[in-house]
């Protein structure tokens, strides 16, 4: 076998392996759809805008409601729940921290199953949020714990399988849930 072909074959194999090890936006979208969600409420998040929000905006199966502030989004999700619809709020962790009172009053005390997917801007790949050098990233999980809100870290491809059950659990318990996106999906 010519050496070039062997190199190409090796390259393809390595490429497929690398691809299997990254979080993919299309896998996230498939999981969101499996969870029965057709309404997305969103502000742009630097971690997920390119390969999650932009494809969702172009997806004819999804209705994306763009909001000006994250607490609006929590309320819109509550209204959609009252109307019998499932929804998902996309935002950056800065927006989540800005929305603590809305999560307290609407999601937790109001027993609304607000499902949130939150990009951890500046979190280092492979590093746990608690060990991040970013203060903003480090405080997210303790804040959610203090609020009593369930959360899941979605960083490796296999983590995607946790999304649909987490959403089901949120609606079964009438309680909010947060999926923390730990790395930029491709």
């Amino acid at each position, binding site marked *: 076998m010519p050496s070039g072909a062997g190199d190409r074959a090796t390259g393809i194999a390595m490429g497929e392996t690398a691809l299997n090890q990254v979080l993919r936006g299309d896998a996230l979208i498939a999981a969101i759809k499996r969870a029965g969600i057709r309404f997305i409420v969103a502000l742009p998040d630097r971690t997920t805008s390119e390969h999650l929000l932009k494809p969702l905006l172009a997806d004819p199966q999804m209705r994306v409601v763009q909001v000006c502030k994250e*607490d609006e989004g929590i309320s819109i999700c509550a209204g959609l*729940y*009252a109307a019998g619809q499932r929804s998902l709020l996309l935002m950056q962790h800065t927006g989540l921290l800005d929305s603590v009172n809305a999560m307290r009053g609407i999601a937790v*005390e109001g027993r609304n199953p607000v499902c949130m997917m939150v990009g951890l801007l500046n979190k280092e790949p492979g590093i746990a949020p608690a060990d991040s050098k970013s203060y903003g990233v480090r405080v997210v999980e303790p804040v959610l714990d203090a609020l009593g809100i369930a959360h899941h870290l979605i960083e490796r491809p296999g983590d995607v399988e946790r999304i649909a059950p987490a959403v089901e659990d949120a609606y079964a318990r009438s309680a909010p849930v947060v999926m923390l996106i730990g790395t930029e999906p491709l």
Partner: protein
Amino acid sequence: MAMKRDQCLKVLARHRTDEVVVAVYTAAQEWTHISASDLNYTFIGAMGQGSSHALGIALGRPDRRVVILDGDGSLLMNLGTLVTIANAAPKNLVHCLCRNGTYETNGAVATPGGDIVSFTGFARDAGYRRTCTFDRLEDWDREAGGLLREEGPIFVELRVEPGDHYPEDFARLYDLEYRERFRRALALS
């Protein structure tokens, strides 16, 4: 000139048929007495969020008319909602603003901006299909029925002042049993 708020709400109640009505703070306290219905939604839970809840309901049930009874203090806390609503463009949403110039529930302190702020200007420039202001009961009574049927989103400023006193009952406004009744009533309608 301003209308007594409870009189203003009674006009709306007379024109109400099967609309969902989302209400906040003092308007909610009065509305639950004036127009009792399982299709009243008062479970707002955080500051300035009534119109956002109403938008969610309107988008989730485009076949139903949704009215939000907002307050000026509330709207000032969530002004971006005007842009969000106009951009989402729900045809079934009527956004009523009970403008009294104060944070009435929290001690009747004046709102910033006083009489200078143009909420109808904000709504119009955000992209609402129509905006209007009422400060006389007879004008409101004449137009209310038509506005409830008109294609939205519509913004209606109601210039109000306190009228008769109604008892405060925040426990009722946030009672989850009433929220579940609302969900069931809306699902069945």
